[in-house]
């Protein structure tokens, strides 16, 4: 099952990549605020607003 070695190495590489992404994310403060991001996406920030006429 030599190919297992390949798959395990590749999977570990990917997992390592995700680990790096996580470490970067936590170092960058991506997870410090878990309140406002969820709300921020609800605000449309169109400068020239395109409101529907009957909203």
């Amino acid at each position, binding site marked *: *099952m*030599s*190919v*297992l*070695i*390949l*798959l395990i*190495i*590749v*999977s*570990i*590489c*990917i*997992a*390592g*990549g*995700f*680990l*790096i*992404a*996580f*470490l*970067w*994310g936590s*170092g*960058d*403060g*991506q*997870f410090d*605020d*878990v*309140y406002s*991001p*969820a*709300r*921020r*996406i*609800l605000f*449309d*920030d*169109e*400068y*020239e607003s*395109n409101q*529907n006429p*009957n909203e």
Partner: protein
Amino acid sequence: MQLEQFQYDNKIPRLFAIATLFWGAVGMLLGVIIAFQLVFPALNFDLSFLTYGRMRPVHTNAVIFAFVGNGIFTAIYYALPRLLKTSMWSSKLSKIHFWGWQSIIVLAAVTLLSGFTTGKEYAELEWPIDILITLIWVVFGINMFGTILTRRERHLYVAIWFFIASWVTVAMLHIVNSFEMPVTWYKSYSWYAGVQDALVQWWYGHNAVAFFLTTPYLGLMYYFLPKAADRPVYSYRLSIVHFWSLIFLYIWAGPHHLLYTALPDWAQSLGTVFSIMLILPSWGGMLNGLFTLRGAWDKVREDPVLKFFVVAVTAYGMSTFEGPMLSLKNVNAISHYSDWTVAHVHIGALGWNGFLTFGMLYWLIPKLYNVNLYSKKLASTHFWIGTLGIILYAIPMYWSAFRSYFMMKTFTPEGQLQYQFMDVVQTVMPFYFLRALGGTIFLIGVFVMVYNLIKTAKQGKFVESETAQAAALEKKYTAPKSYFWHSVIERKPILLLVLSLVVVGIGGLVELVPTFLVKSNVPTISSVKPYTPLELQGRDIYIREGCYNCHSQMIRPFRYEVTRYGEYSKSGEFVYDHPFQWGSKRTGPDLARVGGKYPDSWHFNHMLDPTSISPGSNMPRYPWLFENDLNISTTPSKIHAMRKMGVPYAAKLETTGNEILKVQADQIAANLKKDKIEISSDKEIIALIAYLQRLGKDVRTSGISNK
């Protein structure tokens, strides 16, 4: 704080949305056609390119990569700029991505119907298209990461994490699973053989479900569901935990597609363990989606978009509970090769992917055209039609799965099998008919949606782009990226350590792959020999016609399977199988031991008209195999490619191959003549008969009964 102005482009999301609608309708129509083909074989029309074996891969590829693929891109090209407060990095790359992806889809349909296939499920496309997919995927990646790097919003919303992970993992899966040895421009052999090929294929196959059908759509859910409900996601913290645990666990679950096969037990168990653990993050995600609607359930009553989302997320929860259950070996013994798998995947495809896409489009198209949806009522109608379609699809499939399982394993008191395979086929026919009906109803719903959305677009006026403004990020990334990364590494020793590990890993990878792949160390069975030139050509016809879509070549170690088909399969039997042909569904019986079971004339008549041999069979006819001359000009290059991958062919077989081939072909033609069948020995059917008669022979002649 200097405010900068920028544009959100709507042209590309609109194009992708139209493509999603179009390919969705096409892919599902193909699904309905093949569903009816299984009940009425006459619908194959005796035409090679309309036969089930070629149509089914077109259906699966169209639904996965054309419908869901374009759905993913619609979501990303719409949501990413708005989440990051910036335009897409390059409108040129966006256009290349769109048109590149659509041409891949067209190429895929044309080549698959022409019989150019690698014979690996959901990775059937041949090597030039594989390379094209890689290029377009890289274009998309550059565009996405360029957008992320030039963002004006420091925080990456959870949907973006899902998009990033999807991009990275799909790239890896596609590249590793597409290692193939080209023979001609339209023919290649999988780099891996037998058990190894199966393992890589299902590591790919399962993670295609994970990182193409699931994670991007979770990103879609985390953006569009809160937007449509106008409620923040229930728990942002849970969404983060959901993301990291899900991507970590999913990668390892592939072997659960190979339970009770010749795959080593420890690998099977590993896949099972990770699959069980997957319930937790999956249900975390489902609950996070549903709880987002807390206090907004009155809106769900009013708004068809939310109705679609609720059923989609619920279907996701059902699928991700069912999946781990199917990964338990005792449950998998029932479901594997049966219609249960088909039901399972369609709860996911129709319910989760389908309904989430429909919800997104009902919300998005009015936004793009700055108008209200043409008819909420029609959208609600579509919702109920679609739900009914899913139910009518799934229930008959579950029913037929259990029914056929119990029929298959029933023995008479004398110890004989109670039912022939044909009895089972007859029994499931009504269920197949109901399933086709369910699919048809679902498809009608899609047409209702297309009508509704076209009307919506006609009423409104397309908003090509929207102007927005935001302050630039405080920390300017004017420095080159490498410098930025480097400065981070300087401050973080742990990161440096991990990074070095990865770099070392890649180095090891480059060294190890050639070393390990050239010499396979699957336990060899001395009596297993490479295919003769004629059998090799016949095998390629077997692959070309997509026989693996209905026939398995893998006998599990159960009493009823061994009694019905013969000795259970061993890993050493498949060392020369590039690609493996184990299959994943038994619409017809297993063929692993079919060699020598019937005379050549039986196969001849059976391929000409299956019902003449087995009345009531739903197998299509293959008349063109009796007219087409076998193309033997490829024999030398095929033998050469196999030799390069370590198949121990005799020296100089490239030059003598066709002579040996002709001798064997003449022998089969002579056998047929004894049974009063006149056919010249250079037809394709001769090669196919040679291959079928070879299956399982090596092990039977050696008298190996137990390992």
